[in-house]
């Protein structure tokens, strides 16, 4: 647990989109899925999860419908819309560029400065 990292601002949305892109999920499922795909490295602040889900829903990136959960309870399931899929692609690409750039910058030695 020592290796968990705080989420950078703005990345929660990206992670939610990614988690939902792997299959329709209810809110708690999204939380578990993010933990699972990040190898428990990324810890989502639970209190900010639902506001983020609702914000994405209002932006039309997620759609939501009520369904029945694995333990037979009524739960709200989120899925990715077409707009959400496009957004995920864009954000992933730009995140990767940024990450590569920062990694390159951090890898630079003193002689190059």
């Amino acid at each position, binding site marked *: 647990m020592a290796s968990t990292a705080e989420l950078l601002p703005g990345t929660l949305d990206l992670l939610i989109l990614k988690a939902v892109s792997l299959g329709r999920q209810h809110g708690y499922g999204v939380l578990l899925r993010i933990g699972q795909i990040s190898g428990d490295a990324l810890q989502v602040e639970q209190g900010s999860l*639902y506001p983020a889900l609702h914000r994405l829903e209002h932006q039309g990136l997620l759609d939501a419908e009520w369904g029945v959960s694995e333990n037979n309870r009524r739960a709200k399931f989120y899925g990715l819309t077409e707009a959400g899929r496009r957004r995920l692609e864009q954000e992933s690409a730009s995140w990767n560029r940024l990450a590569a750039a920062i990694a390159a910058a951090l890898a630079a030695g003193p002689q190059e400065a």
Partner: protein
Amino acid sequence: MRVRLRSFAKALFRGRRERADLADEIRFHLDCRAKDLEEAGVPREEARRRARVELGSAAAYVEQAREARGIRLFSELAQDLRYAARSVRRNPGFSAAVAATLALGIGANVAVFSVVNAVLLRPVGAPDADQVVVFGTAREGLPPSGGSPTRFNAWREMDDLFEDVSAYRYADMNLTGGAFPEQVRVGQVSAGYFRLFGLTVGRGRLFGPSEDLPGAGGYAVISDAFWERRFQRDTAVLGRALELGGEIHQILGVLAPGADGDAWNPVDVWIPFQIDPASMDQGHFFSVAGRIRPSVGQDLIERRLALASDAFAGKFPDIGGRLGGSRFVVRRIQTVVGGDAERPLLILTGAVAFVLLIACANVANLLLVRGVGRAREIAIRAAIGADRSRLVRQMLTENLALWLLGGALGVGLGLAGIRAVLAFDTGGLPRIGADGAAVSADWRVLLFAATVTLGTGLMFGIVPAWRAARPNLNAMLHAAGGVWQQIAGRRVDGKSVLVGAEVALALTLLVGAGLLIRTFVAMRSVDLGFEPRQALAIQLSLAGGKYQRTEAVTNLFEGSLERIRAIPGVAEAAAGCCLPTGGAPNASFTIEGREPDGAYPRANMPTVTPSYFDALGIPLVRGRFFGDHDRAGAPAVAIVSQALALRDWPNGDALGARVAIGPAAKANYLEIVGVVDDIRSPADGNPAPILYIPAAQNPDGATAYYVRQPTSWIIRTNGPPAALADRVRKELETTSGLPAVGMRSMREVVAESTRREDFNLLLMSLFAAVALLLAAVGTFGAMAYSVRQREREIGVRLALGATSGQIVRECTLRAMRPALAGLTVGVAASLGLARSLESLLFGVEPLDPAVFLAAPLALGSVALAAAWLPARRASRAAPSRALRCE
């Protein structure tokens, strides 16, 4: 954009459902988390606690939401209202301008609506008023006529469909004997009337069916107010005699205070109608109403009315029931209660709606401009996390607060204004009480005001709110960019649309008002066909009593006229049933040797003394006037007006033709001995077809019918008529033994007959002026603002060497574009409006060039001035100042 709108709508109307869903969602999360923790070995209670802690504030929030769903919405609303109040206080000038504009618009609507409400909407005071119907006979192309004794008898036979079918009419009668004579308002009603209109007796009893038969004797029921006024609530009044029009009526009871039936004015005395069930009288001179019995359907009523019409036409074949295509109809009493006041009221309603739309366009414009001014405030709030929908909601609340302020002021202004207008002149409107006392703020007026206020507030407040709350962060925070955008000329904004719409609305209203005002003016200058100057008119009620036969009336006429002519200063005196301004009965007649190809021809039929034409100055066209020898026993004669002669004798052979009064009449022919010039109604300017009958030759039955209305004397004087009024009145009262009332100069009579038109003219002009003022202020404000926004650009261009002439020209042209578009649309809309007003116009073409030129010119000049003045000022400013001032 669609998604945005949807989420916006959702945010705005976020309901209980969504809130409940959120609670369910959170509960599901907590349960799952607690279960997982339990499975990992955490004790149950601890697991639940920890799940809640992990979820943090969201959990607490939902707990709260579960206890008090929807409370947040209210607390936010309260917060928005506090903001709104603060913002109203912070910009007192702006708020006052907006509230005053809205108060004008809403006030005008409240004023007109409160009259519409009193005249048309206020329920008739009757139990189950929506089941009370008025009977009538409809002929093609004519408004349904009222009741005659024969028809009343036919209608009251349908008592399986209608209950309390009652005949009634209201008239002023002379009360003689007792302490002093006076004229009282009398309701002559059949016995069912009191039950029909829910009038109850407070003392004594009402008259019943047995007292409502011909020859049953005279009875009366008096109103509570009359009991108070005339008898000081003397309890011994029951059984006392009232001498009304010379006939004795025994007082049976006193009504409980309150209701008046459907009378326009309070009634003092009620007497039984006593219509003979076997009557053959075909004169229409009263109203008939009844209540539909429970569970009787409209189909059944119509079938039975059709049957009754046929039976009636079969029973009285010679009155041409079938020939005229007439049939019995019933109409809900509420739909006929406004009478002919309905149409002008609806036109005024339309006119004030325009005024309100213009006011709202002005305000929307102001709000848009202010929204731009507040862009930074909004941008900052959006940047620190204010929810978009929340911002829109808050701006909308602010706008609505302004509307509510304007609405509240408007209700006060409108009611005070209309009361002032009505106190000045009631315009002859029915049902509004003395000086408009019945025009008040009841729930319908308040509901109307609230609906109009909130409706226009939402309609015109939401776009500025939506625009102002647009979190266009970059553009706003780096605001200087706007100028370059403007120079590139890429601005089409809501303000241009509003300016255009406002100009279009104002033009349409101006054209409509212009056409109506020209109509009224044309009517005022119409040649009436008689000389109203230096003439007196006196009316005397001969109803009841000794003046039922022609001989008595002729003797009264001749005796009184002789005495009046003897007064120094009197040039001529005449008498007749009616004044030239109206009141003569309209009836059909038959022309000897002709079968009509449709309905029988109709005409107004006044009875007159021979001196009538000289006294009024009506010129003779052909033939002769009546003479003293045209009396009972002599050959029956008649005189027709030019309009009637042209209509029925287009070949000019009216003289010598013979006519008989009534459809399909084959006897009692009158020979036409003269044609006189037309009399035009001062109210609509049209010459009515008139058939004059010598009063001395009127059959007794007809005389009894004519004296149901006040009889008129007309006195032409050599000097000012008012000086002779008292002498004339005295002579008349001495000869007749009756009190004379309604002594007026003929000019007053003419003015009286155009009261309603004058009233409409006054209101129309008022609204047109308000509309023009609002449109001018609005256009001026919007244009001045759009030029001011470009001051920086202007400064740059001046600095770069543009001449101020170029700048002014170019600015003016650009600012005029929306106004010109508005004028074009307005002209098109006015053409449509003019067509639909056509039937109301007189003496002016619907496409009157003067109106269609003057209105666009006036508005165009206002717009031009509004564009040119600020442009000139901006072009004269030093470039450096303009550059510094962003």
